[in-house]
């Protein structure tokens, strides 16, 4: 979490990309999250970072109500995209970990030199251990049957929606349309998943979330590779 160093162009770039499809840092109303990030930015972002600039001007217009915006101001490192390394030094969780719970860090953004050095050492050890992990990863090939509501459902859109599901360890393969009767066709699509990272439950949840197109999803075949 976090945007990196918000006083640097790289940090502002992360902020800009994050805000491309969002009006606020968190949720759909201005909150203390926006105040926290606003105060960390040293001034209006340059004009080529149009989303960051839009957000900046918008939050600036709430200048007078800053204190009364909802939410609690948390450490800067807790906001922003989930896959950016937290460089503010206020959390000790491994940035590659999705886990937000900070077991070792304190609420105080200030950290003593000693504690910081120790934490860096421990992180370095953990990283090197992780890097030595065996290259062999368990994979499976899954054939999914995705059924639409009726014969008028746009199967091209349906396939697009299914393929839009992205996850670490998930690769989509070939697909074909199989008629099941009454003009209705189901989409049979192949995918290769890493067993540790992706499960059929998650796939089912995400696919059936496209309620407009998908009536149901079944696993037609499941083979270990």
């Amino acid at each position, binding site marked *: 979490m976090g945007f990196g160093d918000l006083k640097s162009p790289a940090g502002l770039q992360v902020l800009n990309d994050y805000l*491309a499809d969002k009006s606020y840092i968190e949720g759909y109303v201005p909150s203390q999250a926006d105040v926290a990030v606003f105060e960390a930015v040293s001034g209006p972002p340059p004009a080529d970072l*149009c*989303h960051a*600039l839009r957000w900046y*001007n*918008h939050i600036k217009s709430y200048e007078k109500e800053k204190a009364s915006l909802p939410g609690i101001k948390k450490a800067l490192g807790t906001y922003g995209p989930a896959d950016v390394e937290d460089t503010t030094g206020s959390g000790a969780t491994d940035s590659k970990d999705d886990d937000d719970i900070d077991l070792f860090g304190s609420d105080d953004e200030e950290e003593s030199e000693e504690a910081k050095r120790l934490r860096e050492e421990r992180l370095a050890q953990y990283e090197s251990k992780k890097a030595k992990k065996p290259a062999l990863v368990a994979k499976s090939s899954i054939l999914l049957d995705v059924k639409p509501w009726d014969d008028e459902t746009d199967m091209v859109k349906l396939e697009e929606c299914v393929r*839009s599901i992205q996850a670490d360890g998930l690769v989509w393969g070939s697909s074909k349309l199989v008629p099941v009767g009454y003009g209705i066709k189901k989409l049979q699509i192949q995918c290769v998943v890493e067993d540790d990272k992706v499960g059929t439950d998650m796939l089912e949840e995400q696919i059936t979330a496209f309620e407009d197109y998908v009536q149901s999803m079944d696993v037609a075949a499941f083979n270990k590779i």
Partner: protein
Amino acid sequence: MAAAAELTLLEKSLGLSKGNKYSAQGERQIPVLQTNNGPSLTGLTTIATHLVKQANKEYLLGSTAEEKAIVQQWLEYRVTRVDGQSTKEDLRTLLKDLNSYLEDKVYLTGHNFTLADILLYYGLHRFIVDLTVQEKEKYLNVSRWFCHIQHYPGIRQHLSSVVFIKNRLYTNSH
């Protein structure tokens, strides 16, 4: 969406409980509201503005003179360009213009939520619902604005919620 249905949605989002009866006039089904003691009001934006004043929410029409003008500008845009379009080309031009307009604004008037946002949301809903993932990404600012308005309390009601995918699938530039 039929004009009468849209005005009923607007009434609910403004917190008006009355439920006026609207009739339709002419070939293009322009809505008409018969007021109790006064003249009949014709036209979507006219009736909408009247409802806002009835609900005592005049701030939705803009606070400064410029803001009020911008609200009117977008109401006019809604009726002439959004409702009046016929081809896919029209829709593309419209979305392109709207996308570049919204680049530096959170709401249509800039920083404040107004009637313009509400009516443009209702007007565009039937088109946004049909956009492909690629198009939603192409018109990123429109998607951002639309997603924001549909989460605004009391606006979406029974209309379907359009899904906007968080990961950028197609391009990195816009």
